[in-house]
Structures are given as C-alpha cells and as structure tokens.
C-alpha cells in the first residue's frame, strides 16, 4: 500500500501543526507542554501551535491557515467536535493527515480523519463516581458537584459520568450542583455558598483541577474539612497530583494527553512512511489517590 504521506523520509524536515482548542485552560497548556517536549526529541519536526481561543470559528480559520501553509501533518484538539468536522475534512482533502487528540470529530477514524488518540471524559468521571461510592463515602452522605462550562462537551460528559458512578451507592445524595465554568474563583464562590446551604456536605466532585483548588479554598474559609476529587491530574506544584500527595484532596483522575502517542504516530507516518496507523487509541485514566500520589509526582 501507498504511504499516508508521499513525501515521507527519514531525514526530511516536517512541519507539524497543532490546533489547540483553548490555551487559556491549564489542562490544555499541559497538553502543549507535553507535545512540545515530545516533538523536541524528534529533530526532523517543527511543531507549530495555534490557539483556538475557545471559539470554533477561530479554530476553524486556524486549520484553514495550516492548510494554506501546507503543513505536513495536522494535530488537532477540537474545541467542539461537530463544528470542526468540515475543517478537518478540508485538511484531509488537501492531503494532510490529521491526528485528533482528546475529542473526535464526526465520521470514521482512518477515513474522515487519520486517527484519534485520547481519553474518555465520561469514563474518568464514572471512575471518580465509583471511587466515591466505594472508597470515599461507603457509608453515604451529602455530596456536591462543581460543573464546568454548562453545555460544553466535557462538562456534560463528566457530570453524567460522575452521577452514574455514585448511583452504585444509594446512600449518597447529591445535594448541590453548580456550574463554575472551569474557573477557580467561581468555584470558590459557588462552593462557599453550597457549604452555607448544606453544612453537612462530605465531598465535592470538581470537573477539573482548577475548580477543585477553588473548592479547597472555600472549605478552608468555612473551616470545614471536605473530601475533594479533582479531574485532569495536572502535574506541578499547583496541580492535582501534588494536592493529593499533600493530603489536601482525596483524589484526582488523570485525563491523559496522548501527546507522546501522537508524536510517535506522527513519526511513523512522516519518517517511517507508514501506510496505515491504528485509527483509535484510547489512553486510560489513572486514579491518583493518597496511595500512589507521591510516586506519581516524579513522573
């Protein structure tokens, strides 16, 4: 079979474009960092990152610009799936292979886009819910949820996943549910109000690490100790892994970036002249708990 990219060569020079959904979110910054690190290890690659600024229109025009520039391979983390589908199709039509991270556009992997690498929002939230019902609150009690930006895909999927996960334990009651738009300051304000209205809240599920950090501040402000679960498992001193290690939170569930896998796939397409690649690569979540947090910190 023909290689996916005709100009492939071991010693070629390749421009890899990455269309990021929104640089303003710490998780996405983490994705960028990992991609840059992985790309740096491949001297043939030049990685270009464009910020979609959380706007499907902006992101679409950036994909168009990458097509104009004739990048050799496109990585994309779509802000929303359906809206970026036509742009991805245009790239494919222009002969540019597209590897999608985090979120799939519509269509068939291997045909409408080259491959998908990523986690599953619903599943990691489900895991958090199950962890809550089995390990955190086996005896039940009041729980609260801090949702991301309402009606955005990850917010919806993580909310549903967590709710389904805690269904396993009928003694757990979700007494409050507020949207904090992924932001720590909004989370702090919202969770402070929740604690006022429901002083018996035993745990809070935050749909990302930033909101979990805000929830912790609110709990401290109210002088309460509440079990907190974050999501994303960001590294570094302000991230979830360290917060769990310090004992501030009960757990966080990593949302793998798939960066390393993506660059490896790009290598096999551009350098090794692969004629096909694995169309769907799912990367699993890791539960960061007090047991493994310290050892995960180094990674």
């Amino acid at each position, binding site marked *: 079979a023909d290689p996916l990219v005709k100009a492939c060569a071991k010693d070629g020079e390749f421009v890899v474009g990455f269309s990021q959904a929104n*640089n303003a979110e710490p998780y996405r910054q983490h994705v960028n960092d990992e991609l840059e690190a992985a790309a740096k290890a491949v001297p043939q690659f030049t990685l270009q990152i464009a910020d979609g600024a959380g706007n499907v229109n902006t992101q679409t025009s950036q994909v168009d610009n990458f097509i104009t520039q004739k990048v050799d391979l496109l990585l994309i983390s779509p802000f929303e799936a359906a809206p970026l589908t036509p742009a991805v199709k245009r790239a494919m039509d222009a002969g540019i292979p597209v590897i999608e991270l985090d979120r799939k556009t519509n269509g068939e992997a291997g045909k409408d886009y080259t491959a998908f690498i990523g986690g599953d929002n619903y599943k990691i939230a489900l895991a958090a819910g199950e962890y809550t019902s089995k390990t955190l609150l086996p005896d039940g009690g009041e729980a609260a949820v801090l949702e991301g930006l309402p009606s955005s895909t990850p917010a919806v999927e993580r909310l549903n996943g967590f709710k389904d996960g805690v269904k396993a334990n009928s003694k757990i009651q979700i007494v409050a549910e507020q949207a904090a738009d992924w932001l720590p300051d909004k989370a702090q304000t919202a969770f402070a109000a929740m604690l006022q209205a429901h002083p018996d809240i035993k745990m809070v599920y935050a749909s990302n690490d930033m909101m979990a950090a805000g929830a912790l501040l609110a709990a401290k402000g109210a002088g309460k100790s509440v079990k907190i679960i974050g999501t994303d498992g960001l590294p570094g001193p302000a991230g979830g892994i360290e917060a769990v290690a310090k004992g501030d939170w009960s757990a966080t569930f990593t949302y793998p970036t798939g960066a390393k896998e993506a660059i490896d796939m790009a290598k096999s397409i551009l350098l090794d002249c692969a004629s096909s690649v694995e169309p769907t690569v799912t990367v699993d979540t890791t539960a960061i708990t007090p047991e493994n947090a310290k050892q995960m910190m180094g990674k």
Partner: protein
Amino acid sequence: MMSEQQITSSSPIQPAKRIDPLAVIVRFQSLIGLVLVFAGGIIFSPRRHGVILFIQPDNIANIVRAVSETGIIAIGMTFVIITAGIDLSVGATLGLASVVTATLMVSGGFGLITTVLAVLLMGTCFGLIQGAISSKFRLEAFIVTLAGLQAARGLALVVSGNQYINISYGDGPGLAPPIFAVLGGRLFGNVVPVATIVFLIFACIATLVLNTTRFGRYVYAVGGNERAARISGVPVSAIKIAVYAITGFASALAGIVHAGQFNFGSANDGTGYELTAIAAVVIGGTSLFGGSGSMVGTIAGTIMLGALANILQLNNITPAMQLLATAAIIVLAAVLQSLVRRREGLGR
C-alpha cells in the same frame, strides 16, 4: 481704509477650493488601516515557491470567511453605535439563535425557510424588547444589553436542555434539510465561502439603508444630538428601539450562519463576539459618542482585524507575540487615522 474694504469685498469668506491630496485620503480614512494591514501582510507573508501565501485567493477567502459572523454583527452594531448606544447581547443572541436553529430543524422538524424566518423573527424581537426597555425606562443600553446577554445565554441553555445540539442532514425526522449545509460551503470554483456572501450582501443592504434612506438619516440625528433631533420631529424612541431590533436581527442571522457553517448549536457560541464587533466598528471610525461613522469603515475594520490575525498566524508567531503585535497594530492604525482626521480639523 478704503483699500482694505475693497480687498475684503473681493475675497469672499468662502474658502478657495484647493485640490488637496490629503482630502482624498480623508475621504477614505476608514480604509487606511485596512490598506496598511494588507500592505504589511504582503510584505511579511511567508512564501512558498515564490508565491505570496497571504494574497492567494484561498487565503483571502479564509480571512473573509473567518470574519463573516462578527462582520454581520458589527454591521448591526454600527447602527446602534451611531445612535450613541451599545449592544453587549449580540454574542449571546448568536448562541441562542444557533441553538434555536438547530432545535427547530432537528427536533422540531421545521423546514429551511420556516426555521430561518422564525429565528430571524426571534432575534429581532429579542433586540426590540431590549431597545424598548432601555428607551421606555431611560436605562443605559449597557445595562439592559448586559442583562440581555445573560438572558439570551439562559434561554439558550433552557432550549437546548443544557446540551449542545448537533445538526445532521438528510430527509426524515431528526434530520435537517441538506441544503442548509450550503452555509458551510464555498461557491465559484469552491473559493468564495457562502458565509462571506451572506456577510457581503447584508453589508451592501445595510450600507444602502444607512446612507440613502430616511431611517439612516434619523439614526445619525439621534446620535448627533438627541434633544435637537426630538425638537426637529425625529421619532427618537422608535429609532432607538429599531436599531436594537437590527442588532437582534443581525445576531440571529449570524447565528444561522454559524449553525450552518458548524452544523452545531451551543449556548456558549459567540462568547466575546460583542467586543470583537464593537472593536471593528470603532476601528472603522465610528465614534462611541454617536452621531458619526460609516458602514464602509465597519466593513474595513472587520476585515482588517481578520487579516491581522491571519498574517500573524501564517508566520507562526507565538500566542504571546500575536497578542502584543495585535495590540501594537491596532493602536498604530488608530493613530494614523486620527492624525489624518486631525489634519483636516475634523477632530472630535
């Protein structure tokens, strides 16, 4: 004494008409920023096999496609700003319109024409209500439309049931008429985006309305001096309400284009479009204090902002540098325009 008198009477006060190159520039001052950005674009454009990427038809098409939604909104906004008003609800109304479009076609089984008409009507009414509240109770438009922003997002969440709605095409229940997808397509040799055509047609109509109709003249009058307009018999309240109905209409139109381009409706779409649209209007030379401005300027401002973003990205500038460069160029363009304006003594 006598001689002075004679000199005087032979030189009427009317200024001599000089042919002045500056006058030409002034006439087109709202285009200066655009011309500069395009000149810069050509100079700094990356080249591939000697071809200047920036001015490739494809790339120009990308630029005008990217700005078509905010452009449509900016055109509506121009009317509002000329009356010395402001409308912050436009982005949220776009989101609401995209959600309603998707819902009507997918869940409601509405046809193309009924959907489009219903959504445009809804947007117009939404704007109209804001205008009426602001005019009736004499509230600052800023506050009323800020509340309108929240109301539109709230309504969109209610309509969509807190979900985003995908639009699939086909014949049957739950599917939208395939012709709607044309909004995401390109015509004339697959070059000219349909969204851009909608934008340009709307721009032409709006330019005509503003420049050649009674209504357009009233809009300027209300912004020029509301009290004077009222004394001269201008129906001030009606005009003020009408301009918000126009932004509502424009936002709904942009929302339909959005839904068609992206096959999608979401309550969060259009976030921040209000600032982009207002920026385009102001960069185009329309004063936030009302009474002056032009539609051509707005169109130029819109495209200028799009071209600027494009050239920066083509050159793979880092996000930080893109922000800094955008800031610098916007100020530069504004300064140049203002210098030209001032030389002619037309300064505010």
